[in-house]
């Protein structure tokens, strides 16, 4: 019994990471209906940026966020202004193909620069600290921090979306681009800000991913898929739903892995497909307003 509780708890905590993968994806889909195929590769790119920052400046991974987050946000802004804004329109192929191309470029660029070797960020003592919270139930400090950060990120996005002028601009632009322009909003800038924000979240997710496990240039697409599944499970357009989606995916994978290590990913995909079959609008769809 306690064994299963531990498994579920670990699944919940990893779910926070998946929710962060999903939040950035959901954000830009919400604002500009763009599905970014390179999202997972950008998470991996953030991990490599963190690797360089920690190695050259001798910072620990969590402190490196102070540099990695703004760096990724700037990359996001530039990417949107210079490239992705050109792909937006009624046709869904251009954004899909261009982000697919970007995915290939990032993967092979990283391969060229860093080889295919596995890397990992070392966070020191934080990594091994665990606390007993009940008889036989243990929580690692790092997964716990990661989950708390994920909840904080989702809460911050929620506040930003519904309480700030930028959030208002995001929602207005999402509703009606041309009228948004009549309000003095430069939609190209609004979209670029959304991508900057998305990649800021990607940066946090990338650093936690890199501390938690090994990474190499090829692991991006799987992260995209986890994020995508969490978005759909949670229901499009709902930030807290995204967190729930991430947790459900994390728990499914943890239970699958407990049954048979080969079933970890499969269990997650199958739960996703079941939810798609019985409740295609997701578990917590946005209340239409």
């Amino acid at each position, binding site marked *: 019994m306690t064994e299963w509780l531990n498994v579920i708890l670990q699944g919940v905590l990893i779910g926070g990471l998946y929710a962060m993968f999903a939040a950035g994806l959901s954000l830009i889909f919400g604002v500009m209906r763009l599905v970014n195929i390179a999202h997972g590769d950008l998470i991996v790119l953030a991990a490599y940026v963190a690797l360089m920052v920690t190695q050259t400046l001798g910072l620990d991974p969590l402190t490196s966020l102070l540099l990695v987050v703004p760096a990724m946000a700037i990359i996001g802004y530039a990417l949107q202004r210079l490239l992705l804004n050109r792909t937006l329109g009624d046709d*869904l*192929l251009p954004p*899909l193909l*261009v982000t*697919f191309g970007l995915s290939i470029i990032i993967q092979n660029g990283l391969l060229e620069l860093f080889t295919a070797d596995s890397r990992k960020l070392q966070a020191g003592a934080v990594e091994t600290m665990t606390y007993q919270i009940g008889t036989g139930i243990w929580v690692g400090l790092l997964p716990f921090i990661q989950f708390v950060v994920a909840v904080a990120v989702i809460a911050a996005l929620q506040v930003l979306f519904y309480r700030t002028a930028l959030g208002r601009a995001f929602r207005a632009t999402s509703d009606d681009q041309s009228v948004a322009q009549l309000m003095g909003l430069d939609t190209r800038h609004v979209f670029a800000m959304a991508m900057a924000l998305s990649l800021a979240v990607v940066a946090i997710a990338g650093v936690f991913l890199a501390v938690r496990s090994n990474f190499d240039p090829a692991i991006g697409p799987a992260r995209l898929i986890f994020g995508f599944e969490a978005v*759909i499970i949670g229901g499009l357009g709902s930030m807290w739903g995204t967190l729930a989606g991430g947790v459900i995916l994390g728990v499914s994978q943890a239970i699958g892995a407990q049954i048979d290590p080969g079933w970890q990913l499969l269990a997650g995909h199958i739960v996703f497909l079941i939810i*798609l079959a019985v409740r295609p609008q997701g578990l917590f769809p946005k209340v239409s307003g």
Partner: protein
Amino acid sequence: MSEQGRYRVEHATRSSRIGVGLIVIVLLALALAPFWGDRQMLRLLAELLTFVALASLWNLLAGYAGLVSVGQQAFVGLGGYLLFAMVILGGVHPIAAIFIAGPIAALVSIPVAALTFRLRGAYFAIGTWVVAEVFRLLASQVSVLGGGSGISLPAAAVIAMAPTRQAREFEIYWLALALTVMVLAAIVALLRSRHGLALTAIRDNEVAAQSNGIDVTRVKLIVYVLTAFGTAMIGALIFLMKLRISPDTAFSVNDWTAFVIFITVIGGIGRIEGPIVGTIIFFFMRQTLSDLGSLYLLIMGAVAIVVMLWAPKGLWGLIAERYGWQALPLQRQLVFDDDARRASDKRA
């Protein structure tokens, strides 16, 4: 002159008549390739042909039916694994296995469509990718087919195809040529049929097509199933040529989807000639840039982005628009007999 007699619908144009002539010559040359090309050339041509077929199928799916899938590797891999399963476990002849793999994959694609069609647009794309991942993970659970590390085709089954290595290579090459021609011919036939008109309408404007009484979902489902059929047969052939299969190679998103999409877009999406032109460019780039290692893939991605943004109709699209060429008689053109007569009067 009766009201009906005043015009007729023609498919052919002058360029397409020349095109058909050229195609016949190229096909003859390709059919005779074993007598003029060396082994390496045959292998390259066979591989090129399979990419023409895969890209043409994806073009049908995305360019005509608007189903932008990034999960076609599901059916490439399924076809490959079906062939290996039939040959290894059932003792089926490899060539027969190719033709059985098609219908099985078509059957499998129906429940897949039932699920993924619930997702719209770009989410459909990633949904198909998830399905391909599920196939990959399931394949690595099948231990009789080598599990995660894969398996080779038993030597006995290979030898049973043809006694000598050369005969086998000829056989596989001709098979690749025949299958690719069959796939292309089927696509042309489909596009010239009643469904083809509906598909072109959907390509041009889905909402208008729907309101003109076309059952868009049904047409899309038909195309999805047919594409799975063809893709799985080509997949089976690809892994018969490779003689070895593993989950990662069989269900590779880069090999069977990313490059196939790049080929189609670079050549010209929504045109039958596009994938052929794209494949030739792709192989040309691969042969000249392969020394660069992974940089070559990076360049490929960049070229695809540039073409998509600055020449969204692809290279064939540019040519076709400038010169009004079409290699295959697919477009319907209304020819007014009065105009034709007036034109001939003028000449006389």
